[in-house]
């Protein structure tokens, strides 16, 4: 399993053709306390860059864009019921959705960890 990062601060972990997606630790810190998460229903398809989910902190609402194209096969109800989980463990238990990837080549264009670290530095 490898993890890559988008310029919009999502992480993507790819295992076979299934990608787990969430927001990065950096994004969670910038947002502050998350109080609301809206996730897409299973079966919905997104192209890379589409509005896919909504995350709101006390301060503001932000869109989460699909970092990779594909179809939603699972979404994390834990963060819908307890949005604070996004802050507690953004790159683990605070994952957003799992996607069946339709354009695997998009994954390779995302940043690796070193490049993302430079990007947010």
């Amino acid at each position, binding site marked *: 399993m490898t993890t890559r990062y988008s310029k919009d601060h999502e992480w993507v972990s790819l295992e076979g053709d299934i990608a787990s997606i969430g927001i990065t630790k950096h994004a969670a810190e910038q947002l*502050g*306390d998350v*109080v*609301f998460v*809206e996730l897409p229903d299973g079966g919905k398809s997104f192209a890379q860059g589409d509005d896919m989910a*909504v995350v*709101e*902190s*006390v*301060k*503001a*609402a932000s869109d989460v864009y699909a970092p990779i194209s594909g179809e939603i096969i699972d979404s994390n109800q834990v963060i819908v019921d307890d949005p604070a989980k996004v802050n507690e463990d953004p790159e683990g238990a605070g994952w957003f959705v799992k996607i069946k990837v339709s354009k695997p080549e998009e994954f390779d264009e995302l940043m690796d960890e070193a490049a993302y670290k430079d990007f947010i530095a």
Partner: protein
Amino acid sequence: MTDQAQTSPLRFLPLHEWHMRLGGKMVPFAGYEMPVQYPLGVMKEHTHVREKAGLFDVSHMGQAWLSLKEGIGEDGAHEKIAAALETLVPGEIQKLKPGRIRYSVLLNDQGGVEDDLMITNPLGDDNRGRLFLVVNAAVKEQDFALLQAKLGGVADLTVWESRALLALQGPQAAKILAGLVPDVANMPFMSMLEADIFDSKAMISRCGYTGEDGFEISIAANKTEALAQYLLDHEEVAPIGLGARDSLRLEAGLCLYGHDMTPETTPVEANITFAIGKRRRQEGGFAGAEKILQQLRDGAPKLRVGIKPQGRAPAREGTEIQSLDGQTIGMVTSGGFGPTFGGPVAMGYVDEPHTESGTDVYLIIRGKPAPAKICDMPFVAQNYYRAKK
């Protein structure tokens, strides 16, 4: 407060470096660089104020003295300056006693609200004929220009540039500040006293913008850090940024000027008729009185109300409000998540006849109707100090 375009460079608060040392995340606000949050984060800062005490730097706000041109200190001088100011505000100022504070609004000729402000009648006979004003940062220059233009014939307006303003808010605020100034313990809500602290003659007002008991302390700008550090050295005190200031006042049902109240809304529409004095309702004699008194008699066409989304999604400023049959009936002017309330809360304007508490409405959030109810405010009970009898 309005979000004005930044044509001039940002101004810095006297405590700018201190905020930076505390890890404050600085953002532009009302022309100043201000801390929006500290490392604690908005949610915990909010809760800290409700449970203990929080320290806010509100030095961006405008502090000014309105003084009679002639006759300061004479018998009747207060009534004269109060009568002059009463031409622009609907509050009862003439009967405001020395050491007492009144919340009011500056009005335009259409009865719209140019700003909300605190008006204090200072202590001491030799101060008769002076009023101390605290106004919002974003509109302070235009407030001062309005006061000068309208009252310049009888009064002088002196902006107090050399002062800073700190707020200590929360259930433990009185106990903490009493360690420095014992007399604050029994001060009535909306009163002011003076105290020599840190080589400055400070004005301590029991008021605030959180719904909690607390104080606003006007002090010489160059003594602010000593006071701020003294207060912060108490373990019950945490520094609080603009983010929590906004969620606290929203839960308390208090208006944010420029959002929940504008030059296009009257104090009747804004649902703050408590700021219109009884005598003033009979006599009028203030800017926009005709419209405001007519609305008091007949009701206003729209009203600021509390709104409780029934789901979990917060409704932000600008969210359209619809009746159940899909007609547009208003707009959210402030909204977000209430950490103490434990869910989303909002306020906004709705047209008659949809203003009654309990009315079901829809909020159009990201294009979809979300059910909500009109409700009474505050969302969290106000916890102001009441003197023990």
